[in-house]
């Protein structure tokens, strides 16, 4: 049996959790989480760690803005973060862009989209 400390990063509370693992790295117990999402996070973090990423994409045709902020529509595998950044830096958006517009769909075959997080209308 193994015990590890893990900070839940799902929300700004950042609960410090204690995880008990058996010899096959299967979770026996999770304590210290305030809500259920902490448990799910612990489960994922041990089997398939994922993160959201946020960045910017160049935008053309705006008088005010050079870039528009974007985010992953859901989490991508942690080891794909830098590859994903390369994809994000390849695209150029054109005005108008609205919150939620998909600027890259299914990035790197992850089924995750890169979506705009601000309105740039002119």
């Amino acid at each position, binding site marked *: 049996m193994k015990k590890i400390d893990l*900070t*839940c*990063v*799902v*929300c*700004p*509370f*950042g609960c*410090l959790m204690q995880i008990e693992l058996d010899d096959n790295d299967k979770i026996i117990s999770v304590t*210290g989480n305030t809500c259920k999402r902490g448990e799910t996070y612990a489960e994922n973090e041990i089997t398939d760690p994922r*993160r*959201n*990423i*946020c*960045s*910017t994409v*160049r935008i053309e045709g705006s008088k*005010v*803005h*050079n*870039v528009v*902020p*974007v*985010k992953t529509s859901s989490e991508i595998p*942690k080891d794909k*973060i*830098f590859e994903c*950044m390369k994809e994000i830096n390849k695209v150029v958006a054109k005005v108008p862009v609205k*919150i939620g517009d998909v600027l890259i769909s299914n990035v790197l075959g992850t089924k995750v989209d890169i979506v705009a*997080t*601000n*309105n740039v209308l002119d």
Partner: protein
Amino acid sequence: MLAIIGAGPAGLAAALEAHKEGIKDIVIFERAKEPGGILLQCIHTGFGLHYFNEEISGPEYAARFSEAIKDTDIKLICDTMVTSISKDLEIIAMNKKDGLMKFKADAIILAMGCRERPRGALNIYGTRPSGIMTAGAAQEYINIKGYMPGKKCVILGSGDIGLIMARRMTLEGAKVEAVCELLPFSGGLKRNIVQCLDDYGIPLRLSTTVVCVHGKERLEGVTIAKVDDKLQPIPDTEEYIECDTLLLSVGLIPENELSQLAGIKIDPVTKGPVVSDTRETSISGIFACGNVLQVHDLVDFVTLESQVAGKAAAEFIKNRNLKNEFAKVVPGERVRYIVPQKVSLPVTEELTFYFRVTNEFDNMIVSLSVNDKEIYSKKKRKLAPGEMENLKIKTELFENLTSDDVIEIKVKEK
């Protein structure tokens, strides 16, 4: 007219709340080109979990409020800077188009936010090359203007902005050599230490500061050193790190020049106005909310606080019912400050006190007392200066409160 200064999340939420309370004539002054405040450059997610029950980015959070404003008759005047306010509720504002303008308001809400402590306030020894800037300035360069400020970077200060920028620089291809923190603990949220530093193998060096910067035209490197428990550099612990960029994330100061000009009483600890539970300042009819009042880590609490101020300002305009009896609120052991600093009497609603502790503590009890008699307590597993705490207290508990009473919040051992 209800005049609101600043169209960040604080100003926007206060305006919407006052509007909901039936105030028709509301004007928001904003010196930037667009509403949204600091949120526009905070493109990371981490906003809205409490308020919207989902995690969104700064611009998305701001847009929900600025879009809602569009559906009302609230007037938003951008590109316009307020240069003075007076205790008679007179406002002077100016912009390029209209020049100087004067307004007389029925109530004012201060929502000017805060700004970063610049390097001058820190006095680091050495030359004055380019490549040294605040973390917020770097954030603006990258996230708004679309420029990268450097390739090899050291960050001084481990508050949230420093941590967020360590990750942002790394994602955009820079190498972040270290995040140095003068104190023995980080002032940032734990989740940011995990997701911004640990995920990318960026070292966090506690009890460490930058003692010298090197370079003529452009920064070439910094010397860092460990500090002792009096925060003084320890000789022979110096270490040179090559870098072209030094980001300073050494704290935020509420932007209160206007408040001070008007003669509003400022709390020396929060550096924001002294307010009552309705967020009214020492000048009747002037309210304050958001980062101008106290530096918040979570925008959700800014929104809640601003709704309190918006509602109270509306009440003030409608009824002019001045509450002028207060019970004092004072920080006790292990508590650095409390907002509000006083409670207006009689207490008619549940009250929320926001406070910060002086150090990191485990397994403690937060206790609220009136004249040294405990009326409420709550167990807390973890307390840290970087995380604002709150205590909600039911109306009944303050039933017979008088202006001679003193409310104290302290943190004690179990």
